């Protein structure tokens, strides 16, 4: 009973637990068993780094929207009982002395954290291959990358370990792995969800995001973790609207298709799945209109100046003094340098070097100030489109389906896999990916983007599109 219930989705689990509290024990036990079984063997997923102990989990759960629902949490979001190691040797085994607001909100809604998930070290990567604890495999095809940096949560949700997972985004680290693993991934508006307890990468871009196997699971989770938090000065004090809904007509709704997201180089089968999704939107009554976001091509260069610059400052705190790894030395300088050399992997080192370089004397104006100006132009592009009557934008989430593990060694080529997702982080707008079909058996994601704080509009389209595509979304 509990095995099929775990597959049924968050709302069904919460309803069943509400009717019979003992069901929670069975569902959580099944989730923990799936953590174990999916980890086994040479082709194990390696999605969950820290598994919760069953005896510590259920008991008197709050009677909220997620009562008894197992959730997984990315390893850079602070939890009290399980380590928060950020996929890094720097924080190996480190347990946070406080809890992230998003985790507290999930627990207060009755959710049960069953594990912390693998990720690219300090969220820097697009494949989860940069984890100090080995790569995660894509459950759809275990020779493929699950995407990243939140690849562990995406894989865990796709493998039905839990219906809901938390991830984090700086440039697409929820939506890209959601697309690669065939699940739903949501990045809320910057400020909609508290970042308190999310280990900082690039503070002006970072956002906690949500994975769900269905739009409904993702909507419930996003609504649950949203809202103002006194511990995060950038969190908005706007009220949290209802995001959960149901499939319905899209009569009169205007869907924009930005031509820059459909270049000639786009994988033809990805384009075909997008065309099918757009046909579905038209059949629901939506008006589809081509639009332009002219500064799109500059998003990757802008992102890879701003994000490493902010990271170089944020990661300065990992120096061996207060917590985490310490490389003993007889000098203070030796302690700093040795700790950071041993604690950080190559991608993190590369980005700290890059960020320090673009912020250094003589280069600040040429790189960092310039990137901030172009970031404003990118945000202005979105403002212009949304103020012209477009309600949501539709694009592919990624240019290609999941690539093979080990296939990409050039850093910049890897960065390009985020080309359709970084713009939403730079502009601070909400965006999500949902499955729209498969190519050679590999999932393809369609991306919806909306104006600031327009999550309800975005979910309205997502519910309708998911329903209209039906089983086609996974074929």
């Amino acid at each position, binding site marked *: 009973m509990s095995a099929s219930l775990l597959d049924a989705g968050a709302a069904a689990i919460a309803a069943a637990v509400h009717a019979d509290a003992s069901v929670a024990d069975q569902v959580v036990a099944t989730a923990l068993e799936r953590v174990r079984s999916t980890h086994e063997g040479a082709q194990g997923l390696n999605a969950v780094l820290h598994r919760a102990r069953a005896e510590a989990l259920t008991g008197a759960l709050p009677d909220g929207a997620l009562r008894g629902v197992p959730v997984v949490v990315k390893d850079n979001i602070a939890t009290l009982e399980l380590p928060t190691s950020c996929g890094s040797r720097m924080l190996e085994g480190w347990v946070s002395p406080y809890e992230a607001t998003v985790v507290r909100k999930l627990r207060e809604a009755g959710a049960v954290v069953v594990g912390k998930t693998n990720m690219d070290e300090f969220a820097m990567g697009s494949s989860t291959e940069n984890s100090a604890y080995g790569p995660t495999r894509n459950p759809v095809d275990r020779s493929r990358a699950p995407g990243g940096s939140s690849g562990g949560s995406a894989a865990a949700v796709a493998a039905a370990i839990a219906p809901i997972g938390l991830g984090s985004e700086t440039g697409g680290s929820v939506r890209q792995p959601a697309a690669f693993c065939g699940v739903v991934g949501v990045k809320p508006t910057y400020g909609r969800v508290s970042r308190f307890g999310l280990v900082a990468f690039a503070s002006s871009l970072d956002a906690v995001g949500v994975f769900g196997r269905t739009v409904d699971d993702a909507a419930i989770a996003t609504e649950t973790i949203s809202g103002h938090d006194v511990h995060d000065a950038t969190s908005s004090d706007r009220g949290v609207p209802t995001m959960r809904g149901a499939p319905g007509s899209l009569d009169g709704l205007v869907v924009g298709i930005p031509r820059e997201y459909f270049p000639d180089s786009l994988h033809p089968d990805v384009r075909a799945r997008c065309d099918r999704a757009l046909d579905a939107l038209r059949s629901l009554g939506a008006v589809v209109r081509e639009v332009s976001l002219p500064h799109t091509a500059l998003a990757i260069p802008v992102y*890879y100046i701003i994000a490493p610059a902010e990271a170089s400052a944020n990661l300065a705190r990992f120096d061996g003094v207060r917590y985490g790894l310490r490389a003993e030395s007889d000098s203070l300088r030796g302690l700093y340098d040795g700790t950071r050399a041993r604690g950080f992997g190559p991608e993190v080192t590369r980005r700290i070097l890059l960020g320090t370089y673009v912020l250094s004397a003589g280069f600040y104006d040429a790189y960092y100030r310039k990137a901030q100006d172009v970031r404003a132009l990118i945000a202005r592009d979105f403002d212009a489109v949304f103020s012209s009557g477009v309600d949501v934008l539709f694009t592919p989430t990624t240019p290609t389906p999941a690539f093979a593990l080990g296939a990409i060694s050039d850093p910049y080529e890897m960065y390009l896999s985020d080309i359709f997702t970084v713009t939403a982080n730079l502009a601070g707008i909400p965006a999500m990916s949902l499955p729209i079909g498969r190519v050679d058996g590999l999932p393809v994601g369609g991306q919806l983007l909306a104006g600031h704080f327009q999550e309800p509009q975005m979910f309205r389209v997502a519910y309708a599109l998911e329903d209209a595509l039906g089983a086609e979304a996974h074929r």
Partner: protein
Amino acid sequence: MAVTPDDVRHVAQLARLEIPEAELAMYVDQLNGILAHMEELRAVGGAGAAAQAESTREGMRLRPDTVGAVPLAVPLESFAAAMRDGFFLVPRLATHEAGEES
């Protein structure tokens, strides 16, 4: 504006990163490869756009200038590498006189 080995040594020193000499050439090549793509930003206008965006949006929001302690579930000593009397312990700065730990 090509990155040189000395540039990498310099930023590594600024960032408190120990880069082995054997890895220096790799980072020089990779940073040059990445920064080459950044050059296309030079052709774009938009000077002052960031400052203008800040002034036309809601602007920087300030919170009350008060200290709000984060309640910790465990004491600092439970995760600090080394502590004594409420202070984090580190090796002496090289410029200080040799002696016992500070």
